[in-house]
């Protein structure tokens, strides 16, 4: 081959390679992205059952139930406005605690329960996943008009003004098995 032809050949091969590689990579990226939703978004119908996504919020105090004899755990994830019940059969991370932020990856079942394949918790005492911090809404007002003190202090959310969405306050005293999940 003449040098010119050789160069053209090389450039052609390189170009074809780049196009194929980019197409493959973008395809792989589309297939493996997981979106993040808050309980309010889930309840509002942002995801269909069977669609994988990540759910984030706080583990509501008093809702963690561990079954005896198996690894199944159930708990409720809330953004202080809406809530979603989560079922997870596996080892919970060290830093998973009631009243703390968590992110779970999985999908909604037809029964409205979120079946998690993976549950993540924060890395240390003071860190909260920023997505969770974003998802959290201010605590709803109590019956006597006071407000429970700021429920969480996200790592870097200090200067950001939070969007306030008012809706029916969640009754935080009802135990898990009595909570009706109305995702449909």
């Amino acid at each position, binding site marked *: 081959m003449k040098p010119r032809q050789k160069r053209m050949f090389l450039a052609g091969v390189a170009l074809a390679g780049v196009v194929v590689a980019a197409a493959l990579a973008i395809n792989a990226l589309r297939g*493996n992205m997981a979106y993040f939703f808050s309980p309010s978004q889930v309840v509002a119908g942002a995801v269909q059952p069977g669609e994988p996504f990540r759910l984030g919020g706080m583990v509501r105090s008093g809702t963690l139930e*561990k079954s005896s004899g198996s*690894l199944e755990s159930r708990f409720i994830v809330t953004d202080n406005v809406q809530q979603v019940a989560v079922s997870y059969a596996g080892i919970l991370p060290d830093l998973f605690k009631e009243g703390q932020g968590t992110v779970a990856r999985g999908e909604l079942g037809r029964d409205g329960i979120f079946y998690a394949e993976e549950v993540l918790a924060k890395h*240390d005492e003071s860190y909260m996943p*920023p997505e969770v911090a974003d998802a959290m809404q201010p605590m709803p007002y109590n019956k006597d008009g006071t407000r429970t003190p700021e429920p969480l202090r996200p*790592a*870097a959310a200090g200067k950001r003004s939070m969007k306030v969405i008012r809706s029916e306050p969640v009754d935080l005293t009802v135990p898990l098995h009595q909570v009706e999940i109305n995702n449909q």
Partner: protein
Amino acid sequence: MIPEIGHFALVVALFVALIQTIMPVVGAYRGIPELMAMGRLAARAQFLFIAVSFAMLTLAFIENDFTVAYVAHNSNSALPIQYRIAAVWGAHEGSLLLWVFMLAFWGLAVTVFSKSLPEHFLARVMGVMGFIGVGFILFILMTSNPFDRLIPGAVDGRDLNPLLQDPGLIIHPPMLYMGYVGFSVAFAFAVAALLGGHLDATWVRWSRPWTTVAWLFLTIGIVLGSWWAYYELGWGGWWFWDPVENASLMPWLAGTALIHSLAVTEKRGAFKSWTVLLAILAFSLSLLGTFLVRSGVLVSVHAFASDPERGVFILAFLVVVIGSSLGLYAWRAPSVHVGGRFELFSREMLLLANNVLLMAALAAVLMGTMAPIVLDALNLGKISVGPPYFNAVFVPVMLPLAILIGVGPLVGWRSGDVRPLFKKLRTVFMVSLITGVVLPLMAVGKTTLMVMASLAIAMWVILSSAQYLKERLARRSGNKGLSAGVYGMVVAHAGVGVFVIGVTLSSAFSVERDVHVRVGDTVQVNDFGFHLDEVKSIRGPNYHSDMAQVTITRGGEKVGILTPEKRTYFVQTMPMTEASIDTTFFRDLYVALAEQRDEDGWALRVYHRPFQAWIWAGPLLMALGGILAVSDRRYRVSAKHVVQARQKPASGPVSGGARA
């Protein structure tokens, strides 16, 4: 007083770095030897002052000086001494101080080993390194001063994050930073060459050993990080495609490409401009990694936007360094000419393919790492990119590269002949294929198509490297031994094969079981029985712990005892899983104690991971190859000889003369 001395030394170091940036470059431009000589002097002084500063911070940790905010936040009087020292780089401020300390150390090393460098060139190198120093010292002083006082002082410290209280943390960051920062030397050489306007092979010859040393430190650093995640995080995985991990993998990929392209440029004078670009790229990715990890942008672009001080500084510095070096490149790099002629089938061509594949892998990792940040910044939703993406794009690019590793060294420079190559590699090919099929059946008793293909490729890499070595040994003249560089290349390439074997078998055949057990229960994993003997409470220096005793048996015979722990540290009251691992040549047995479920019931994670240790042995072999390569005689002979030897024209196809 001690923190003030440290702070003051850092301020002095800033001014010394400023002198180092300006004087030698002006001197080189104007041709004033006195000014040029100041570069070397300033680099040494900078090292001295930063070392003092670093020592003072270490002293503050050793003496439990909780009037220093950084110490109070990251240490505790009950913390054992080795972790008090490691805590110096346990958080943001101190790890940046370690960064500049490493930078100054590399600068010092260049002044020591540069006796034969042309004065002009050295002056420019010093200037560039000084500039990087100015940027980072300024960053520390303005946004992240580790010497800030806490008034009034704390009674006791908040302790080091328990995750970091581990021998792995003592050495992982220094190794990683040595690698990251080490690429600044190759970068400085490349920019100095651009500034001088001589883009000949001189800078390449000089920067080869430096690049190799930086690369081998980075390799060791990444391995240590992976190993630490494996046993300390309690999940049993060894690579999570986490953005922080990717931040270290990207410069590694660029550095690997650089090592190979430097070889071509030195031997054949080809790829001159490309090599300069790669040197700039490798260090830019190190800076990008620092930006990603240190700016808070990873956790959220909004966290970054709401506390922009640190992030914006690094970002601005990143833009200045990359922008100006690329601008300089565009201005000075010779107009597109490949330099050196070679045929389609030649070692140059194969090394070009190596670079293309490494760049493709790099681009894929970069895309997956940056996509969530970019989409979030554009308010297009919060996404995460999972490991399946990275596996899907990374593996198909890396396997062809592994095939090329087997061929490359056996092909001559300039033009290679295909037919004799077939003959040479026929046996290797057959043996690889057979072992690829048979090995997994023998080792684990099952196999899949993908496993067979990967193993065949791994064997191909190892055996063809051995074939190459055999050929070189047979061809050497008389009693003369082979150069260390040849051994280095063979060992490093074999390391790739070992790594591929480990990854393939471990990921295909690991068995993981998360189970609920009571004391006295036995869990069966493959043919190993894990018997939970007891769980007892013990007390450590700054934690208390539930320690399980698990006896492992195989066919009724005792294999070993593992003692996984669940620790709760006193100060940060966070539970920590300490996995316990029994490692042999062919498998790891891994037990992690998770939570207590009820009265005497515990959640236990049990793994059987075949060939797990090979995953770390492989990269360590690569690093060993790097050590061999830099110990080559030609880097030790006196400079004059080198220069004379180099001036002989490197003509003719030096087939097999690889020190890639």
